């Protein structure tokens, strides 16, 4: 572990496709590279447990998953220092990271920082979404990948987006049973997506996506145009209710898997003070980047789904490009050792092809983003949509005043599960754009650390003078 006085050339946060790609480039070029990830093993969410999964039967998780193994191997062979189980909880404009692993926090300086913190699943605030038995599809997929676990009992999948169909197919291949897939994609989305069909048709998503749908629809009841989705039960999920063309329906269920797309995980970047903007097509916040992927803070780049959702292959290409930019900035004489920029840019363009259609087709409907009444918005602090609207009614213009009034976003998840809902609900109530409403002001630690760990960090003279008074 390098001391603060001896900084790394490059520190990368997140060992998913973008972080692994970046590390492969920078360490491969001989730059001292530190790659930190919160999970025990590299791969991120998409290639979760790719080196350790008990599911050796490759057809279950599919070729796209197993492609991650080569990327992990490349990064591991590059000479990068890869630390698992490491939580980065702060980053500042001087490119100083604070990270915790093995029970100790330390400050780490780097000449370049690449954030590859990826995405998380969009909040799906329907009535009953806090009941035990309700999980995200991504969560159940993680359990499948990491531990070979599949739901036992009656399983219902609900929502929209490619991951939902992929996960359904993986479960079926693994021999699990799915009672129904409730597709919440609004009919109107198909019309909106039409103009993007030509670009999509020649993308890798087209054939794959259609094949997945066929595979699932052969074996599972697929209900299209679902609205008014609710999870019901006392102390745990008992049933799933919804409206469809055929009317109101109710299915008994033990597990409900929810998914309506993924959004950038912005907490670390925002807490570092990096400027963000509202991305209307993906209904989320994305960092403001220049053409080279640099953020508003000098020396900090963001690559992968943290810049806006592009998928694993785009993330990997972005990561490699960010790595290349770091090499150019820190040791331009070593550029001869890295792949050609042009090739990487082409790979990125290929990977991004078809994305516009996915954004339109799988844009989550308003009803499943804008809850009402007693539906919980902030899971940590148990704040409802009704309370939030009342706060707006007495003058809370934005998320920060609402947070002060109600504590929404103040719990341990720090708004990750409610932030977008809060912005969009206030936007709707006030009749102004989400960009004008804004977001929570985020601060370190972006993940909790123990008081003892914080206390053990360096005490500067200045800090002591600021605290110890008579």
């Amino acid at each position, binding site marked *: 572990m390098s001391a603060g006085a001896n900084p790394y050339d490059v520190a990368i946060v997140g060992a998913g496709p973008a972080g692994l790609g970046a590390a492969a480039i920078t360490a491969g070029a001989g730059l001292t590279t530190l790659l930190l990830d919160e999970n025990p093993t590299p791969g991120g969410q998409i290639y979760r447990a790719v080196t350790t999964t008990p599911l050796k039967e490759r057809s279950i998780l599919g070729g796209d998953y197993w492609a991650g193994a080569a990327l992990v191997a490349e990064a591991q062979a590059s000479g990068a220092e890869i630390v698992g189980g490491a939580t980065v909880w*702060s980053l500042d404009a001087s490119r100083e990271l604070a990270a915790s692993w093995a029970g100790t926090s330390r400050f780490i300086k780097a000449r370049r920082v690449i954030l590859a913190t990826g995405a998380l699943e969009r909040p799906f605030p329907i009535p009953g979404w806090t009941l035990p038995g309700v999980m995200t599809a991504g969560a159940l997929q993680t359990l499948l990948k990491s531990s070979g676990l599949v739901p036992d009992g009656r399983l219902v999948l609900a929502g929209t987006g490619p991951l939902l169909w992929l996960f359904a197919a993986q479960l079926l291949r693994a021999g699990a049973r799915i009672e129904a897939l409730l597709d919440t994609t609004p009919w109107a989305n198909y019309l909106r997506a039409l103009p993007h069909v030509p670009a999509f048709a020649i993308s890798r998503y087209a054939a794959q996506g259609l094949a997945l749908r066929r595979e699932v629809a052969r074996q599972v009841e697929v209900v299209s145009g679902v609205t008014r989705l609710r999870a019901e039960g006392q102390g745990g999920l008992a049933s799933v209710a919804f409206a469809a063309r055929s009317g109101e329906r109710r299915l008994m269920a033990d597990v409900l898997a929810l998914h309506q797309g993924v959004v950038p995980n912005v907490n670390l970047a925002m807490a570092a003070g990096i400027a963000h903007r509202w991305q209307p097509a993906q209904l989320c916040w994305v960092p403001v980047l220049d053409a080279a992927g640099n953020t508003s803070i000098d020396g900090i780049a963001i690559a992968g789904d943290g810049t806006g959702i592009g998928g694993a292959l785009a993330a990997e290409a972005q990561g490699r490009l960010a790595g290349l930019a770091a090499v150019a900035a820190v040791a331009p004489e070593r550029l001869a050792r890295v792949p050609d920029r042009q090739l990487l840019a082409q790979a990125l363009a290929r990977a991004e092809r078809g994305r516009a259609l996915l954004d339109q087709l799988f844009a989550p409907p308003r009803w499943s983003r804008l809850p009402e009444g007693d539906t919980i918005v902030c899971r940590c602090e148990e704040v409802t949509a009704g309370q939030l609207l009342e706060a707006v009614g007495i003058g809370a213009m934005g998320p920060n005043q609402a947070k*002060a009034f109600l504590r929404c976003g103040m719990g341990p998840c720090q708004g990750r599960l409610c932030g977008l809902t809060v912005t969009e609900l206030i936007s709707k109530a006030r009749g102004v754009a989400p960009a004008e409403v804004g977001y929570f002001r985020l601060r370190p630690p972006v993940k909790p650390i123990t008081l003892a760990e914080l206390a053990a960090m360096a005490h500067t003279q200045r800090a002591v003078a600021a605290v110890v008074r008579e």
Partner: protein
Amino acid sequence: MRRDYDVAVVGGGLVGAALAWGLARDGQRVVVLDEGDMASRASRANFALVWVQSKGLGMAQYMGWTVRSSDAWRQLAQDLRAQTGLDVCFERPGGFHLALGEAELAARAQRLKRLHNQPGAADTSVEVLDRAAVERMLPGIGPEVAGGSFCPLDGHVNSLRTLHAFHKGLHLLGADYRPGHTVHDVVPAQAGFRLMTSRGEVGAEKIVLAAGNANMRLAPLVGLKSPMQPNRGQILVTERAAPFLHYPLVTIRQTDEGTIMIGDSREETTDETMLDLSIAAVEADRARRMFPALGKLNVVRTWSGIRVMTQDGFPIYDQSERYPGAFVVGCHSGVTLAANHALVLAPMIARGRLNADLVGAFSARRFDVAKVA
């Protein structure tokens, strides 16, 4: 000119909201002009103490004013609850200032002695306790705690819920709250004032400047002054825990929700967008030395905030001589003094006259005297 309101209050933080609430209860037609969501807002960043001990070194009248507000807080909390249904959880169990080591304890005792030797000092019943006496009330203190001071008048409150309650109360009273209306200019007019905001003009017969550190800029526009000297403080907060700390300390307190707040740093800087993690580390370290069991708790958030601070640290309450009807109200302790602001000062402003016996000492004219001397 338009005279839509009896009073325009500039600032919707705890000071402005408390005054506006008091004025509206008094039957005044009130508008509150406030900044937007991302404003630098001490009311969202404070430590929420209703604190008496150690207030007033250099101005004995401030001690009495503080004790009065502390005494009035129970009434305020009851009134807010009755009106809004929100329990702001005011408690006055008494509070501690703990000393790590004998040197800190001696310095503390010396300071309290100077405070209470001032002519006109109020009786706060503060006492310096040795370690054994402290431990009887605060089991779990660390071995370095040499003792501390205890004042039975000290207490705390849920300050964010108090802000919420004032705003809900204002709404129920029919006051007009206008966020996103940053006041750029104030122009005295024939009978009243015109306020130029980022979203248009507002007219009112009286104005109250309660804009925190921005009073420094606004007060001279109406013949007042409000010399400020803001500084930055940082606070950390833990996850919720079962009740463990039954008295607030000046640097540590457990909220009604269960979280433990740790704070009281002071730096001469006014950028609240960033914070210094080394300061958080020192605060955490002192907290752990005071209560070793705190070490295991998870810190879930930290923040920095800019203290509203007048140049001598004491409140400024004035009415303009040149433009009667223009008032300035500024102070550091917006939580502690909220009861006075809502229940005592607001009625004075409604009547158009500050009672010199009660608040005359807090005129900014004292800064002229200081200069001459």
